[in-house]
């Protein structure tokens, strides 16, 4: 089965996990098409009362059978603005209008059983656990780096410890793990793990650091961009990312349709960072 579906999904559960809310949805047809790195576009507000019309992009965190549902789909919401706060307050029995799974390019898996470093920041670590499982199925050793400003914004590494050969945790305030920005730990981790591929999902500055460190180390990088995608479906042409094509020509791609996962050496990071005029959260949400 290919292609996204648009449907009204029932919320099977909503539970707090630190600063985040994990929503588990009955979304027939979505889980079956899931690949790590794909996402959902979600509408904010009750049907008929909607005034916030940009959709929020949420990474698909988990796909599993649940109750009578062949596949349920879990997402994590970081409530940073009015739209994501509304989403984070959804509870069992509520309904959400969703489209997914979306993304023209998701995480590309290595053909050989090479060592991998998987880097996730805050809520954007959500798609990486399923990725780590797929990597392990291919006999690729997984080394995980989870980073966040503080413990409340750190996804639990418990489940990942079964999958990953090593887990490194870093917070900016030192509330758990090493007190350091994730970017500072990359060179040493790359040396120690001998990773041939680095997978990362997080803020643009962290992804830029990952792409740079990978290149210095002679590794490939696969970066999952977290810029706002107003429609998520490729229709609005509203999520530009400056890239370099295979032919070396500078182009502008759409994060949602040509991404969200791009090879780190294909993104023109300096142009991207320069183009960002306001802080972003990666969910299409403006702060405040």
């Amino acid at each position: 089965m290919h292609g996204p579906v648009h449907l009204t999904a029932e919320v099977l559960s909503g539970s707090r996990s630190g600063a985040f809310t994990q929503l588990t949805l009955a979304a027939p047809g979505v889980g079956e098409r899931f690949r790590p790195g794909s996402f959902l576009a979600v509408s904010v507000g009750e049907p008929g009362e909607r005034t916030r019309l940009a959709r929020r992009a949420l990474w698909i965190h988990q796909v599993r059978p649940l109750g009578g549902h062949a596949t349920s789909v879990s997402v994590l919401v970081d409530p940073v603005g009015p739209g994501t706060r509304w989403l984070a307050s959804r509870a069992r029995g509520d309904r959400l209008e969703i489209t997914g799974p979306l993304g023209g390019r998701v995480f590309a898996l290595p053909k050989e059983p090479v060592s991998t470093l998987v880097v996730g920041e805050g809520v954007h670590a959500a798609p990486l656990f399923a990725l780590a499982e797929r990597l392990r199925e291919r006999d690729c050793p997984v080394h995980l780096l989870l980073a966040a400003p503080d413990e409340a914004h750190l996804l639990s590494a418990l489940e990942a410890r079964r999958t990953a050969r090593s887990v490194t945790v870093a917070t900016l305030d030192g509330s758990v793990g090493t007190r350091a920005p994730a970017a500072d730990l990359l060179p040493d981790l790359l040396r120690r793990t001998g990773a041939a591929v680095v997978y990362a999902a997080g803020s643009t500055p962290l992804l830029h650091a990952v792409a740079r460190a990978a290149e210095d180390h002679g590794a490939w990088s696969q970066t999952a961009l977290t810029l706002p995608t107003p429609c998520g479906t490729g229709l609005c042409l509203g999520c530009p990312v400056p890239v370099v094509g295979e032919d070396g020509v500078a182009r502008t791609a759409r994060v949602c349709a040509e991404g969200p996962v791009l090879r780190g050496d294909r993104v023109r990071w300096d142009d991207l960072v320069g183009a960002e005029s306001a802080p972003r959260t990666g969910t299409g949400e403006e702060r405040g």
Partner: protein
Amino acid sequence: MSPTTPGTRVAGLHLAEPVMLAAGCAGTGREAAAYAPLSTYGAVVSRTITLDARAGSRAPRVLESPAGLLHATGLPNPGLTAFCATELPALVQAGARVVVSVAGATPEEITQVVRGLARTSGVSAVELHLCAPDAAEAGVLAPRDGAGVSEAVSAAAGVLPPGVPLLAKLAPVLAGVAEHARAAAGAGAAAVVVGGAQPALLPDGRPAGLSGPAVRPQALRAVHAAATALAGTGVDVVGCGGVTVAADARALLDAGAAVVQVGSALLSDPTSAARLVTDLRAGRAPDDHT
């Protein structure tokens, strides 16, 4: 109300449905086709094509505003030649009745683009985009008076073969709608498209358009003004602006539009236009804006 909509004539074309996908809201076409076959719609208007490729504006391009979306994309497109080689055949292959939206920096450039399309098969009509809300940044003409509209429309209409009508998309600013519509009709447009984005600014001060349900009442008035101005000329009005459900479309049709376009509604629900087609056919007009 008849139980079915037996097709519609607009600008001399017979369309199976009175619903078109608006320019710039269907991606390259392929993305829209993921949710419904493109033959579902009366026509699909392509993203706006210019002579040379445009990278488009920097981010942010599209932002939320209460009941609307602000947009300033800078008209990203692959340019005429690449469009005719790739996107246009793909749209036709996907079953779309294709209307190609075009813009240009000068009347001469408009002539060049339209002449290129006139030689290409698969083009049912051309929609001349004369109201890009970010026209200066996008580097395209957006005439402010009837003389400017007339000059631009003449530049396009003069090079189209018979049977490929020209639609002129006009600014929905009320003070000029009637004048612009008459100018477009006089210069050879077979229809005018009225009611799209209202002029606005992004928070960072760049010119943008405001679309969506927020502008629906203004669209209704602009369509009414254009239809009144064009009464008896045989030139049709295509209505757009915040169309989400059948009741919205009916209101524009009742105000004098021959067909409607759906734009920003697709961005929050990519199935909305297909549902609108079904509801109009069934004579249903749900008014709950779901």
